[in-house]
């Protein structure tokens, strides 16, 4: 398995995957947090009640 890892490390720029993964992940969650926190209460209330009000 060690040998295999070395082959991967030899691929030029393979470390970009680790960095990109982390950046994508952080961006997504920060963005998501902002998104959700900015939701207005009326909309949330309306959506919440959809299954109950629908027949």
């Amino acid at each position, binding site marked *: 398995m060690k040998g295999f890892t070395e082959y991967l490390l030899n691929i030029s720029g393979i470390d970009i995957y680790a960095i990109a993964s982390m950046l994508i992940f952080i961006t*997504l969650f920060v963005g998501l947090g902002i998104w959700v926190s900015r939701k207005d209460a009326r909309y949330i209330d309306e959506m919440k009640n959809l*299954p109950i009000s629908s027949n």
Partner: protein
Amino acid sequence: MEQQQFSYDNKIVKYFAIATIFWGVIGMVVGLLVALQFSFPALNFGLPFTTFGRIRPIHTNAVIFAFVGNGIFTGVYYSMQRLLKTRMFSDILSKLHFWGWQTIILLAAVTLALGYTVGKEYAELEWPIDILIAVVWLIFGANLLGTIAVRRVKHMYVAIWFFIASFVTVALLHVVNSIEIPVSFWKSYTVYAGVQDALVQWWYGHNAVAFFLTTPYLGLMYYFLPKVANRPIYSYKLSILHFWSLIFLYIWAGPHHLLYQALPDWAQSLGTVFSIMLWAPSWGGMVNGLLTLRGAWDKVRDSAVLKFFVVAITAYGMSTFEGPLLSIKSINAISHFTDWTIAHAHIGALAWNGFLTFGMLYWLFPTLFRTKLYSEKLANAHFWIGTLGILLYAVPLYWAAFTQTLMWKEFTKEGVLAYPNFLETVTQIMPMYHTRILGGILYLTGVILMVYNIVKTVKTGKFVDNEAASAPALALVTVSRETGESGHRWLERRYVRFTLLVVVAVAIGGLVQIIPMLVVKSNIPTISSVKPYTPLELQGRDIYVREGCYLCHSQMVRPFRSETERYGEYSKSGEFVYDHPFQWGSKRTGPDLAREGVVGGKMYKTAAWHFNHMNQPQSTSPGSIMPSYKWLISDNLDINSTPAKIRVMITLGVPYEKDYDTKAIADLMKQANEIAADLKANGITVEPQKEIIAVIAYLQKLGRDISQNPASNAVKN
């Protein structure tokens, strides 16, 4: 606003609901048979069609795609219409979807029994059925998205997001994992080989659990739980977080099924890290479900439906706690290849999928038939019997897993394996297998009570095919964002864009995993002594795949002392470059076979041993629970298929010499005659064209190449 009159299509919901129950019973009966076969090998009946290796995929396919699949569609067709205040987009598409899906299930049952299989777990079906699945899935998708397009509600409720994500991702997974080159109408080879195939397969396998068994059912939870409890979901904001983080993270975690196996470390680490991160959204979802019932727990006492939901959601929490746990390398080293995996899968299937389905059906049938449930008492009895069944199923298997794994790893003071005979570790856990049967019987008994209860309910009610409804027409939706409208709200209105965003979210994780594997293809360290299979070995391998040997035997020696002592040298990625498909397996009911062909090795067996073992396993291994494979001795090998198989292998890049397909049969017969002569020398007379000869050739090839000439084993690019 103009009030519009329309009707809900209840008939299609009823159809899917009946199919759910029908296939559920069948899938569970077959499951019970599988469990019985462990305790009583005679129940393999000595027939190819009823032997474990073929029955087990029928069980898994029936439960996943027939029972849970129809369960998904029941819930989707019921809730979509109500949440969007519209009839399904097209009745014709609904019918095509229903009958198409049932046809696929029937074809699957028949072809799997006949041994037509690709040999990849949960993706066994051969290429013509794969194409049919893709077509029917697209029909479902068209109906789903079409219904959203003709809706009378401005925004999509969160349940529908889960449905969209499920549709999109399952389509992607199915197509990528099923790329095969046909040899004949019922035989194909996957285009991926070895490590790549393993990675693609478990990217699929893991995400099939995610996007077939989890996300659509979360959609059902977000609809039916509030509906039945008659109170809104605890936190809608949490459900938004749950959705996006779950679909984004899930897809990265596939490699956790291949820890300590011949897979690059970075992929294993990626799988582990993202699996652990999955804890957060999964538990967010569970908490959201359970807290919906805050202040209403008295309702749970009175309602069997809510009881089923509570246990289902709790089991979702338990399963998604256990999943990341199992993907921690040190825990996986203990759990992998044992019954722990089986127990884990059944907590998900029996409790999360099963109980959520039962709750939904107990609510849906009286609602559709405008009556009351025939007997709440019987439903409660079902709940308790089912719960006990789950415990009696899972607990013995956890026990079996710990016992067996500890036995595998135990060394004596002298430093040798305490239990060198694999079979000892199986006979030790037989009582656990017997107890598990009881769990299965109880669970099935509960389901039979449900069938009776529902039949009685239906008889007292009156079904309406088209339920009248009315809703205000939806005002023309503007394309651009309205003033004061947040980004996400706008996105929910624009469902095509929403769908595309879902594609992007799942594609990122998929690509991060897949691209380096494609890049690495040319970098897989080849081992010069590893040669392509001879025609006879290739035919033998196909029989190995056909009989589902990989369901009990792995071909992957992990780099642990306990494994190298038992089996031999640990497996390297370069050994599998000609394996279409890979056959690493995921469970060891029998020993690993990766070093079966190493002459002088710990696992090596003679041709005569293999012959006797296949004929009557107990003759060579007393107490073995392996079924007999007598028909391999009497059936002739389909020798004429050899040239076509070689041609496909050449297309896939396996380095046979030019025009080798024309010489393949001669080579096959030459090798077959040698093995027949070897058997004859040991007092066994068998014609060289019998299937058993090919299987022996294949088993004696396993691991032989890397053991033959250690000097030439230098890793090369």
